[in-house]
């Protein structure tokens, strides 16, 4: 059990980190890459810099609702 605990803890922390990254939206490029590989195999995906630029600028035309 004790030998099992450390890798388990590490995996849990790793997962928590990925959830936190997901909540703040940092995984957007990874999601795009996964989608691109699946749907358009063989085509060159957008570069990271280019992607983030377009991703953020979408907010200029679609602000999204926010609450009180």
């Amino acid at each position, binding site marked *: 059990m004790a030998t099992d605990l450390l890798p388990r803890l590490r995996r849990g922390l790793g997962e928590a980190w990925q959830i936190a990254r997901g909540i*703040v939206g*940092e995984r957007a490029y990874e*999601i795009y890459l996964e989608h691109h590989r699946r749907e358009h195999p063989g085509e060159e995906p957008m570069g990271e810099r280019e992607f983030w630029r377009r991703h*953020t600028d979408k907010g*200029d035309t679609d602000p999204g609702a*926010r609450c009180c």
Partner: protein
Amino acid sequence: MSAAPADPQATARSPKPRWTPASIAVWAAVAVVGAAAWTMLAISRGEEVSAIWIIFAALASYAIGYRFYARFIQYKVLMTDDTRATPAERINNGADFHPTDRRVLYGHHFAAIAGAGPLVGPVLAAQMGFLPGTIWIILGVIFAGAVQDMVVLFFSMRRNGRSLGQMAREEIGPVGGVAALVAVLAIMVILLAVLAMVVVNALADSPWGSFSLIMTIPIALFMGVYLRYVRPGRVMETSAIGVVLLLAAIAGGGWVAAHPVLGEVFHFSANQLTFGLIVYGFVASVLPVWLLLAPRDYLSTFMKVGVVVLLAVSILIAMPTLQLPQFTDFAFNGQGPVFAGSLFPFVFITIACGALSGFHSLISSGTTPKLIEKESQVRMIGYGSMLTESFVAIMALVAACIIDPGVYFAMNMPATALGDTVQSAAAAVSQLGFTVDAQTLQSTAELIEEESILARTGGAPTFALGAAQIFSSVFGGPAMMAFWYHFAVMFEALFILTTVDAGTRVGRFMLQDTLGNVYKPMRDVSWKPGLWLCSALIVAAWGYFLWAGVNDPLGGINQLFPLFGIANQLLAAVALAVCTTLLIKSGRAKYAWVTIVPLAWDAVVTLTASYQKVFSDDPAIGFFAQRRMYAEALANGETSLGATEGVDAMRQVVVNTTVDGVLSVLFAVLIIIVLVDAVRVWIKALRAPQGSLPTTEHPHEQSRLWAPSGLIPTREEREIAKRQNTGAGADGAAH
């Protein structure tokens, strides 16, 4: 997460819970703790009650509501079907439609629905004692607020993420659609004005607060440039830098306030701040998103989650004692100085966010339904996120109720009622029956290093004072009070500036869209003149209410806040009417009471409040009675009335009460229109043979995706995840 074909056993999940001795024992224990906590809150007389009982009552009630009522709604009423592919799975375009891990989406949805609202309402409602607010926040969320969020999310998800406005138009008719649109625009304007007023009241004559809030602008600009040109996509890293800079700005504020020159530079009057906020609102809403709004959003999300967790932990450690009684006399006589009117209906209007917030239906029918992975997750994401927001409201209530009642009233009464000195304020508060001496008011101000705490209305400073007491009793002691106070003020003001920026943009887009029907180029969101014009119109609208509120001789918050509450509950009525219509049309009429009961309650509360605001003869409550009183005094040539000095101030009251009164009438008429129109559709649907009415629901498509339903996967779910051997299991997080 996993794209593997669904396990047939996984989809045939039995909705029947399996009761084991262990689970029976756990739920019995939860019920006992909840009942004990409620009993402590209800029966204690005179002795000191620990705030911990409010926390326990809330958590136990939430757990029972989530486990039993929300589960009933999920399986019996909505009949969520995990064999059905969600829009995220079907459309999956790598951008706005994308199956998202339930825990990520929960955080996302919570960050989108929770803002400054749940921190303000409960603080104001505390004038009636701690019990009315506690009961309404907890029961309201279980039976109304969380139900609305979950049901709207479900129906929007079944319609490819259609917005509330679209659903109202398609399911009720054009009248319902227009009412929804007007309600959204109106609520937006009032909301922005009220929130901006909260900031003005918190920062006026406070160099420390003003400095740290102003510093958020260069911090956000820096973060924007850093994310754009230096490290694109490194959101966590950039936000961490931002938070460190923010804490430095708060710490630096103390030094700035004490500095002879800088202290003066950052010393602003209420009207200077009002003007500054209006200019800021306009500039921020026309700047590109990447420069200011996006980084501000990241910063707000970070602070939001961090402070909520910090506050919860601190309350559990500090275990503060409630200072306010269960009920004050104001609950029954309607003469409360913070806002007028008796418990029914005004507690239910004042506390909207945290119990029932119509605004949430816009989020539940916007981004979230396009990202949800499995239908059964609507309970965790829709209902669960709202329970979390409700808990934030409970903590705000605790923060307000643990401070000295005399200090609470001195902070929340209008300036004209308190006079200019701590002596006059102490006398005014003591007259209400809450003894406080001038010395206490002075020393409290000194403790948080502010010039004065008198008439700091709007909720934020009161919340900040309570939070600072809780934080400093855990971290740092009295020496840290000033830091924590400004930390909490800043935390709230930061949200509000983000909302002001985002809200102005959302309002501008809606206006552009509406005006686009008349003049085509308006609809083009990159056409600069249209963009500037519409931004200016929206800013002018909330700016007017802000200015009028800040200069209202009777105190702006107590006049405007009920209007904000009514507007929010109006939107909730639209959302619940849409939900009921959909339940009936989709053959679930047997269970339509799930949304009809909260709708009926919401309608009764809102219409009673509107009726009193319009027709009450009591000038403290009725806008028109107040208007008449001042108009008559002016006609008789009087130059002062009550605490209002001078003809100009009296004329201002006449104008303000007219505007507020007309708005109350408008909101009430809108609610009645929506209800009548919805009932017409219900009757038509009930008379029509089953399934003959058109529906916009997307047809069933087989899901090929599997994921757990709740936050913590069950044993069966873990086994399925293991068999699939994909990333779907949450094994690590569950232990």
